[in-house]
């Protein structure tokens, strides 16, 4: 518990540093937020001056930085330049959709990855192994916009099994497969090598000698011991997903934080970018914490927080 608390408190300096960097970088990159917001429409000078005053962009850099930090400390991350809505509300509105897709992708990725990796790892250097690793390779290397469009073409249009852009659980199927295949690819490769490794260990020979069944050896002894590296990788991938899957969101017309971040950066919508940084930093720390705690569950010999 103390360990978890320490990890969570560790977020504060991380946030301070990232915010300062984001604030600085956003000043350095070219472009004026008012122009970007007006997106090239022929608006008059009057409109531009109004907006500049409204956003406080007429004030000096340092003053804006201090104001921003002061507000952030009080938990007020401000309003989006473009939408004039509180950024925390904007993020919470989009987070649901992103978490849905992350969860869907995780189910597919974990399921398919585990299956492919286990099968390949238990039958190494056979044609089954080659086939599984080929599928895994395809999952990692094929671009998600292509996979997404193919899934739309086959399952959305030709077979018409699932909606392409609808709502509800059915509409989550194709996007989940799209991101899930990517996760499955990397996951399967690590599971395979860890399993091969584990199967060569002494305790497996002991288990065999005890006359244990195949399934019990594979799942209880080999898999559990082989899980630490794949779980670490999975943690990183989930953290990335929780930050949004831009391309998949675009192909399936899903709202989400990935799209939101890209647009916020392109529009130089500073308050929104900063709030998204807070959110993603928190998500990374949280997922990493969970992964660390999971180590202890997988392998009781690992004890976190007690060096």
């Amino acid at each position, binding site marked *: 518990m103390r360990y978890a608390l320490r990890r969570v408190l560790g977020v504060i300096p991380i946030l301070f540093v990232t915010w300062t960097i984001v604030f600085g970088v956003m000043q350095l990159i070219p472009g004026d937020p008012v122009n970007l917001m007006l997106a*090239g429409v022929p608006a008059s000078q009057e409109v531009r001056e109004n907006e500049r005053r409204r956003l406080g962009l007429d004030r000096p850099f340092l003053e804006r930085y201090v104001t921003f930090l002061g507000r952030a400390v009080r938990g007020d991350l401000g309003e989006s330049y473009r939408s004039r809505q509180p950024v925390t509300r904007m993020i919470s509105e989009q987070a649901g959709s992103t978490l849905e897709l992350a969860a869907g992708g995780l189910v597919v990725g974990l399921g398919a990855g585990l299956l492919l990796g286990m099968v390949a790892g238990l039958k190494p250097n056979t044609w089954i192994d080659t086939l599984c690793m080929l599928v895994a390779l395809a999952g990692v290397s094929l671009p998600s916009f292509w996979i997404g469009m193919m899934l739309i073409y086959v399952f959305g*249009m030709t077979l018409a099994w699932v909606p392409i852009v609808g709502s509800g659980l059915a509409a989550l199927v194709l996007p989940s497969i799209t991101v899930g295949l990517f996760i499955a690819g990397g996951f399967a490769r690590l599971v395979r090598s860890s399993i091969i490794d584990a199967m060569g260990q002494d305790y497996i020979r002991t288990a065999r000698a005890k006359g244990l069944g195949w399934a019990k050896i594979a799942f209880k002894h080999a898999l559990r011991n082989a899980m630490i590296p794949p779980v670490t990788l999975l943690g990183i991938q989930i953290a990335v997903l929780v930050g949004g899957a831009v391309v998949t969101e675009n192909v399936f017309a899903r709202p989400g934080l990935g799209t939101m971040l890209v647009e916020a950066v392109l529009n130089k919508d500073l308050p929104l970018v900063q709030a998204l940084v807070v959110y993603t930093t928190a998500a990374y720390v949280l997922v990493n914490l969970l992964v660390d705690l999971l180590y202890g569950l997988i392998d009781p010999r690992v004890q976190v927080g007690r060096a």
Partner: protein
Amino acid sequence: MGNRMRKLMWTTALALSLTPVMALAQAGDLAIVFADDSTSDVTFDPRVTQSRHEEQVIAQVFDQLVSADADNKKYPGLAKSWTMAPDNKSVVLQLRDDVTFHDGTKFDAEAVKFTFDTIVDPATGSQGAIDMIGPYEGSDILGPYEIRIRYKRPFPTAIDSFSENELSIVSPTAVKKLGGTGFAQAPVGTGPFKFVSWEKNKQIVLERNPDYKWGAPFYSTQGPSKVARIIHRFIPNAATRVAALESGEVHYTDLTPPLDMRRLGDSSKYDTMTGVASGVPFSLMFNVSRGPLQDIKVRQAFMYAVDRSRLSQNLFFGYAKAAWGPIAPSTPAYWKGVEEYYKFSRETAGKLLEEAGWKMGSGGIREKDGQPLQIYYPTLLEPETSVALQADLKRVGIDLKVENVTKAKQDELIINNQYDVGGIRWVYNDPSVLRIPFDSGNIPEPGKFKFNWMRWKSPELDKVLAAASTAASLEERTKLYADAQKMIMDAAVFMPIHDQIQTIASSKKVVGARFAPGNWQVRLYDVRPAN
């Protein structure tokens, strides 16, 4: 595959796919899905918006004082009749007395005054309406349904301005209750559809206004719409929009790729309609303040060298035509004379470049005083058009340097005068838009982003454009704008390339969508089942 397995798969698939279908069926009435390519909508307050995508929703929820059809012909709207003062400095409007806002507020002269007064209030943060409302001075309420709108200077196009989406009348009660940002998220108007909900970046749901009986006479529907619900679905990926149309999930797609337009138009299941947007076509502005483009002969040669008709045909399959003047043919006061300028002729281009002293060098690029004829074009819009231009220009010995840049980078280059050519396009319903790129006062300077990217100062043109904007009569206005278009073409500072088009594809199950003036937004009030 085993029989049981197959059965299981089918049942699962069926159960999954039925969910949305049932949701539609339960409405019992016609629900249509309109697929829009945007995801970046932020406000549906007509007083604030500057986005053609946001206006697509606004056009369904709000009415205007004067109603205009796609051909820009004016009809009574919320105003039954109007009288312009002889000096064009005020208008008296007789308003309808039988109109209510969606929140139950009665529509009256107060609402009109409130809307117009708040547009010019800087606190509203208007980005579009404030430029369309003209030299607004104030409003006098003459009776509950009679109002006089006053202007600081003559404003002969006041009636046209009343038909713009941006000058739609908003419910004062709702604005006061929700505040500006709240109203932007839950707009209340008098239009044929009421706002229901908005899932950000996903969809907006509108439902029929059952009390609607004040639609303009040009619609075939009178009274409430035949459409019970509109689901305005954001689908930014064009291929996905088309796939959703073909799978039957949506009824309309906007900005449909031209290749799909042709295929869908040829099939028996889909209709297509193409609108030539009014405003400024996709065009290049030549920076006359630096480099080879300072010489008018080089600018003329640039225009002669490009086969704009073939370029449009190749890129848009005939859906967008070549453009010849600074405003599109669908814009009021378009001057047909522009069509005689700079018709494709490689010979003329070569001759002009020779006269300007640019001799063909090695490698097919012309040179003068040892300098190659290079023109730098930072490209933000339509990279494919840049490449086509590059190919045509190369054939006369001009080296067009194309670099794809972000909007932020483009703005930086423009402000610091580090470009030779800039590309633009605007949807705008009035020739007065010409002042924004052509006024001498609008040359960009450090810290001030403005639109005269030609950096061209013409006091004569300034005078004509200023006179046109305050012209006392429409005839005089048309004449002055014709002069302006001629001056622009003669100076060879601006190269129109192709019309902007709005390409709509729709399921044949529904009919009746029509373009709003400007040919961009689609009005869905008149939509009904095909049979």
